């Protein structure tokens, strides 16, 4: 099978036949590839430029069936830009992503972020929580009202009453699995994830106990996603304390 060049027609047939093999890529590229056989240029779109992200984040950033790989679609563009810059500069660590973004300029990272922020793919399947009702109640109370005695503000105070986030830099917390959410809270506590100072999430995460983390992440992960989960307009509510990434 190592023979010479295959004809264009054969190549197109092969590409077509195997498009099912890697559904994520096929979805995005197969139709355009058949077209591109003649001039052999990829489509001049962001969708084609971020194919390298699809295997882990799903088409249109809708997330995939892996607990740890976050959904990107619909998050505020400013928030996503901040994350991409943090990965590029090593302030947020996940080696495969640090590597992919190492030599990209801010302007391109912003374009990638805007692309994912604008996507509205269908919501991921709902999750049935595996923790007790008691723990879920604790989670709900932390998220909605906080725990003043232990210095924990309500998550809703910043992330919004419906947890859909606020433009430009506060992310929604919907559609993310508990293991991803708790890894992020852990990363803030251990300093491997940092945001622009004052890093309000470091402060929040620092006041949570292990049990708080289990409770609040289990409750958040089980929230249904409303039909419109777009982030709320900038300035819709005041923050309980300042976050460096969210302009006043």
């Amino acid at each position, binding site marked *: *099978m*190592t023979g*010479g*060049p*295959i004809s*264009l027609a*054969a*190549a*197109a047939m*092969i*590409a077509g*036949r*195997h*498009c099912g*093999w*890697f559904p994520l*890529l*096929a979805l995005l*590229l*197969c139709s355009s*590839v058949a077209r*591109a*056989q003649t001039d*052999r*240029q*990829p489509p001049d779109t962001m969708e*084609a*430029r*971020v*194919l*390298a*992200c*699809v*295997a*882990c984040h799903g088409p249109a950033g809708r997330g995939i069936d892996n607990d740890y790989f976050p959904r990107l679609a619909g998050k505020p563009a400013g928030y996503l830009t901040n994350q991409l810059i943090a990965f590029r*500069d*090593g*302030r947020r660590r996940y*080696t*495969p992503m*640090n*590597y*992919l*973004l*190492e*030599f*990209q*300029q801010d*302007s*391109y990272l912003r*374009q990638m972020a805007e692309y994912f922020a604008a996507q509205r793919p269908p919501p991921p399947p709902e999750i049935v929580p595996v923790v007790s009702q008691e723990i879920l109640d604790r989670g709900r109370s932390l998220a909605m009202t906080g725990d003043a005695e232990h210095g924990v503000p309500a998550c809703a105070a910043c992330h919004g009453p419906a947890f859909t986030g606020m433009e430009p830099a506060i992310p929604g917390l919907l559609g993310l699995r508990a293991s991803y959410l708790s890894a992020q809270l852990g990363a803030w506590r251990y300093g491997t994830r940092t945001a622009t100072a004052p890093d309000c999430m470091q402060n929040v995460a620092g006041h949570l106990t292990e049990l708080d983390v289990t409770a609040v992440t289990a409750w958040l992960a089980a929230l249904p996603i409303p039909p419109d989960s777009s982030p709320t307009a900038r300035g819709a509510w005041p923050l309980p304390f300042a976050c460096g990434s969210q302009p006043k």
Partner: protein
Amino acid sequence: MSAQAQQPDQLLRRMALGVALAALAFAALAFASAVAQPHPPAPDSAIVKQGEYLARAGDCIACHTTPGAALFAGGRAMPTPFGTLYSSNITPDADTGIGKWTTDNFYSSMHTGRAPDGGLLYPAMPFSSYTKVTRADSDAIFAYLRAVPPVRQPNRPHDLRFPYNNRSLILGWRTLFFTEGEYKPDAAKSSEWNRGAYLVQGLGHCSMCHTPINALGGSSQSQAFQGGLIPMQNWYAPSLTSNKEAGLGDWSIADISDLLRSGVSHRGAVYGPMAEVTFDSLQYMSDDDTRAMAIYLKGLALGSIPDPVSSPMPTTESSLLTRLGESVYKGQCANCHSGDGRGMPPQFPSLAGNQSIQMGSAVNPIRMVLNGGYPPGTAGNPIPYGMPPFAQLLSDDEVAAVVTYIRTSWGNRGAAVSAAQANALRSAPLE
């Protein structure tokens, strides 16, 4: 090597290279210079602009700036087989940088690899290439360095194992591998060729990676540009002299120039450590200088014919591999690189006829498949297309199979690779 290579905060850079042998504590720096200081030149003066351009050509930033930290403040870790070196603060801070240096001191560090007190610099600082730089160019770089903001940050002592922590060992390295002397133009060649040779051999320090590293950690003059595995990084920098590897003899000048400056071309894209060279340095070169380098590089190729394929594996095994490889390729790769391997260049590189995947060492294509990559975002190619990493999706057998397939299909003449080779590179450092 791999145990060290996995240290978390490892910043593997080229330097591993020539590095080597030795080292004394950093005490050597305590020189007291009574010589008068040159005044810092105006930041927008012509000589500063010129110096900035030349510092780009020399890629000083790659080693002397820690990502996300102050320009030229040093402290960047450079893992070597002998321990970790830390680059120096070369800002004009009087106490912790080179603020007290004279132009002569600076020229001497570039030209002879000696600190102002006469102490020997480790060859991780590529003075064995910079020695070719003219006095005028060295003075311009120094003028530029005097105009950048001073940063107070003491140099971090190197962390080298015995006996390499003895700087006097550098003397041995110098005897073997260092020839002092500015570039001497070759009167038989065009001025463009000479300009290209000056940049490639001198400031570009291309031979630091593109030369086999011998046991002593030096890059040997006689083997300059013949290619080699970069220690600690596990990337292979192909030979630039032989068409057997990545010699550029049959590339067009336009393709070589595109590759160097924009990072993509109709013959292939840059990746791994070469992506950094393009991003930090080559993308800033002028049309004329890029073209001059391309002319020189094209002329370097010896025009040798590829060796016949010699597979380390029995043929039944490798034909099984090829069959598995073909199905992986059709499923995972053909969308971008197309069924006939010709890709959609320059954005999705052609794999058919791509020299950089057929070399004796299969390290680069294996790592490409495991880690994916984006060519650097450059002025000439600001929003590149990317390749996904397959480390999580494909097993060792599948990686070996698909790499074998692309190395042996469409007339490519590489040899098969084994699952063990693929597995070994899963832990290679990603930085």
